[in-house]
């Protein structure tokens, strides 16, 4: 059977034009996909955790699903300061259920933005987010800037589908109608296709963004001759390109959000875009990594009022990044049990946090072996959303798309497992 218009559950580009060939209950082939999406979909059945596992002195041993739900409920109920973490690679429906559980048990809850675009959120909370959908870029953008990101590798179809090579309504010559600028600290495959590559000194993003703003608002004369390894002349030229574009966009990645002054980089980028809109049309967009990290932020926000790092122990949502962020509560050794859903914190967190993760009961709802499952005390295998379970995901431009289920799974979905845990806790109460 050929299934068309399948949504790729890999990165924030959320391409929805894949063709999947399924025979029986097996995937035979996938078309229209990048390598990353191909490997995830075609390789979905390799290396799966086959049954719920619990750790005792001898190591991990199999238990029944029912027993696993029981153990999960017990761990969460007995914890005084539980944390629920992950969410960026599952559906919004599962995330909603997770928040319901967090509210119920008075848990901390955080999502993976905390270690990637968290500073973007903070920058946006200072200055706002002048943005647009990817189709606006496709149809209009004559100037595209990639800043601190390498879509060629991280979002392989982004440039082809949305931002560089694609033809749109007002850009019917595609690449020829667009000027591409890459700003980064090193050359990359993305910078190789750019018209202009600004190789900047590491950590100088903030200076350069503000220098561009100064030039654009007419205060360029106060600038030194060289900023962050770029000459003032060159910056004036770039500023000119920005002002003279009909529709410009800055895509930015972790190279901006996670270096130097982090959230201040993003705040100043937003201010730059705001100033540019006095002269022309300009937008910015974070290159979100996981396919539904944007959905996680959205669901957290409409349910609790805040996008991540939420402490529900008081019965209401207390949001204070730096205090309630996962790495901070772990490093302070406050957390005494953790539930991980659809992510791998052990691979991404800082050392003090990982040390704490090793000390406390760790429940992982995960399909595959990962650094996190290596430390887990209880592992509940799960169906893979977007392949074995359907639901809603949000693209990096906040557009919701329903991901499909095209393979039957013997495993329950994140949504079902979380629902079972809630029901089990109800039985205890």
């Amino acid at each position, binding site marked *: 059977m050929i299934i068309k218009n399948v949504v790729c559950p890999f990165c924030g580009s959320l391409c929805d034009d894949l063709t999947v060939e399924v025979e029986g209950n097996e995937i035979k082939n996938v078309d229209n996909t990048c390598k990353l999406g191909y490997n995830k979909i075609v390789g979905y059945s390799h290396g799966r955790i086959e049954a719920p596992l619990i750790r005792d002195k001898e190591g991990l041993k199999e238990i029944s699903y029912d027993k696993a739900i029981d153990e999960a409920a017990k761990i969460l109920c007995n914890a005084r300061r539980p944390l629920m973490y992950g969410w960026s690679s599952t559906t919004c429906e599962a995330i909603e259920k997770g928040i319901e559980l967090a509210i119920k048990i008075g848990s901390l809850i955080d999502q993976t933005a905390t270690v990637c675009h968290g500073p973007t959120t903070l920058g946006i909370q200072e200055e*706002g987010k002048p943005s647009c959908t990817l189709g606006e870029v496709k149809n209009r953008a004559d100037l595209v800037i990639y800043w601190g990101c390498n879509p060629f590798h991280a979002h392989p179809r982004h440039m082809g589908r949305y931002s560089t090579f694609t033809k749109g309504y007002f850009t019917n010559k595609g690449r020829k109608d667009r000027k591409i600028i890459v700003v980064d600290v090193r050359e990359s495959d993305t910078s190789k296709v750019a018209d202009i590559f600004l190789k900047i000194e590491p950590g100088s993003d903030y200076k350069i963004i503000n220098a561009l703003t100064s030039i654009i608002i007419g205060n360029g004369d106060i600038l030194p001759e060289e900023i962050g390894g770029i000459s003032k002349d060159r910056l004036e030229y770039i500023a000119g390109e920005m002002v003279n574009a009909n529709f410009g966009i800055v895509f930015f990645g972790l190279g901006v959000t996670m270096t130097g002054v982090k959230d201040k980089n993003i705040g100043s980028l937003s201010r730059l875009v705001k100033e540019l809109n006095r002269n022309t049309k300009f937008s910015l967009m974070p290159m979100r990594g996981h396919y539904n990290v944007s959905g996680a932020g959205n669901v957290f926000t409409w349910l609790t009022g805040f996008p991540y790092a939420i402490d529900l122990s008081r019965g209401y949502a207390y949001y204070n990044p730096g205090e309630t962020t996962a790495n901070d509560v772990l490093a302070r050794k406050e957390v005494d049990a953790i539930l991980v859903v659809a992510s791998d914190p052990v691979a991404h967190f800082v050392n003090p946090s990982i040390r704490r993760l090793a000390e406390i009961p760790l429940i992982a709802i995960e399909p595959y072996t990962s650094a996190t499952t290596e430390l887990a005390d209880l592992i509940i295998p799960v169906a893979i959303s977007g392949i074995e379970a359907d639901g809603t995901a949000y693209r990096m431009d906040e557009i919701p798309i329903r991901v499909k289920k095209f393979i039957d799974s013997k495993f329950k979905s994140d949504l079902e497992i979380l629902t079972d845990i809630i029901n089990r806790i109800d039985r205890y109460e």
Partner: protein
Amino acid sequence: MNELIIKNGIVFDPLNNIKDEKKDICIRDGKIVDDVKNPKILDVNGLLVFPGGVDGHSHIAGAKVNSGRLIRPEDGRRSLKPKTSITMPSSGYSVKNVFSEGYDYSIMGYTTVVEPAMPPLSAIHTHEELRDIPMLDKLSLTLFGFNWFVMGYVSRGEIDKLAAYVAWMLKRTRGYGIKIVNPGGGENWKWGKNVDSLDDQVIHFGVTPREILNDLMKVNEILDLPHPIHVHTNKLGQPGNYNITVDTMKLASGFETQRGREPLHITHVMFSSYGGENWKTFDSKADEIAREVNSNKFITVDVGQLMFGDTTTMTADGYLEFNLQKLTGFKWSNSDTELETGGGVTPVIYSPTVPVNVIQWAIGLEAALLINDPYQVWLTTDHPNGAPLTRYPEIISLLMSKEKREKEILQVNNAVNKRAILPSLDREYEWNEIAIITRAAQANSYQLRDKGHLGIGADADVTIFDIKPNEIDPSKDYDKVEKAFSAAKYTIKGGEIVVKDGQIVKVVSGKTYWTNAEFDEYYELIEDDLKDWFANYYTVNLDNYGVNDVYLTNPCMIRTNPTIGSRVRLA
């Protein structure tokens, strides 16, 4: 059988011409009935009884609202309330979380609310939030005002295709009606520009706001849609815009409809009733607007009342938000949506010491006081643009008491005496008129036959306020009026008591209404265009576009009777 009788209330039910009558109300299985056998008895002994409140325009769900919440944690931290044994945690003052939106409306006696700006491409998002809002019945209006298909069909004069497209879109987005924001102008904003009159051209598309409005008004009638075209005028929020507002209103003059409602609704008219040439010469033209409304039976408006304080503005009119941000310097978000619509969000602080804000405040009240027929003017704050929804009780007390207004006028900048006419207005709203502008007028305009009244067969949505209309004088006891409207004695939703003494006592999940206006072979009319434009210009596949019923709580489809030549309603 679940029966309830509300005894001895003083009932105001304008759509059934019941006014100030001591009357029992019988309820069985969620509906109003003529008598009951073995009911639970609620003796409300002289208290004020209204139909459940209907808010016809309030931004409660979707991308814009969530982007307001996202950029404003400082607002989220206001009004934090912990969960209870039955309710979920609340947050937010002007941009509330979904739970708080439902609870706060219900506590004030509202039972039905319309989200008035759904971007089609993110319609799933709007419906996900609507689904999660408790306590209320919900509707949403789909944005069409600068959509490429719409402008294409208008420019080519293809009215049948336009009708087919609107019908298709309402079904795909589970929308209730046509919302038009800054017709045509929104497309120009995508190049950083706007339109200045009804006859300005939309860049590249060769159509004008006037043509877009006229054709969508025609289509609205062809498709027999329950609600008028719902219009946010061009130049909204700019000094001197009252002219274009009056011009827009005149488009509806003489336009007869089959349904018992007007063809055109002008929303949050306060923001469109500005005089002056700039912010320095800014003044109120509410009198000009009211003159047009009073002589033009083909339009309704809602107020969009502004109240002093901090709030968050949000609209599909991105140009407006950008310009507001230029004045305030506050944070600003923009969200242009491919082929369809746009939007912006920015916080604002309305100050009683700032002349412009004081005049804006006066304009809303003037419009409400100068428009004679209360069925033509609904009470809204355009939540949260003019003020958060929780400010309604205060506005009701202002409309009911000249004394209260005089007291307020003394507190605010003197511009109110020079560039507004509020101080000279004597009218005081009566209870019955309040019931119309907060209930009956909206229910009628949305043609929600089971809402906004207490006749036999209506949904048993009832509000009982803790005030005895025959024992108080609202023009003097305005504080009591405000208090009573802030916290209902009882809110009854679908026959169940959900609020008692201003507290949520039961959490319920409401219905979601949408309009199905499909007609014979409507899809075939536009199929090629859809396939072509989706393949070439959208970034989402046609197959993956839109919403289905899994996202709706208790979906209620409203069937219409479209007639397009020989084509009629799809069987």
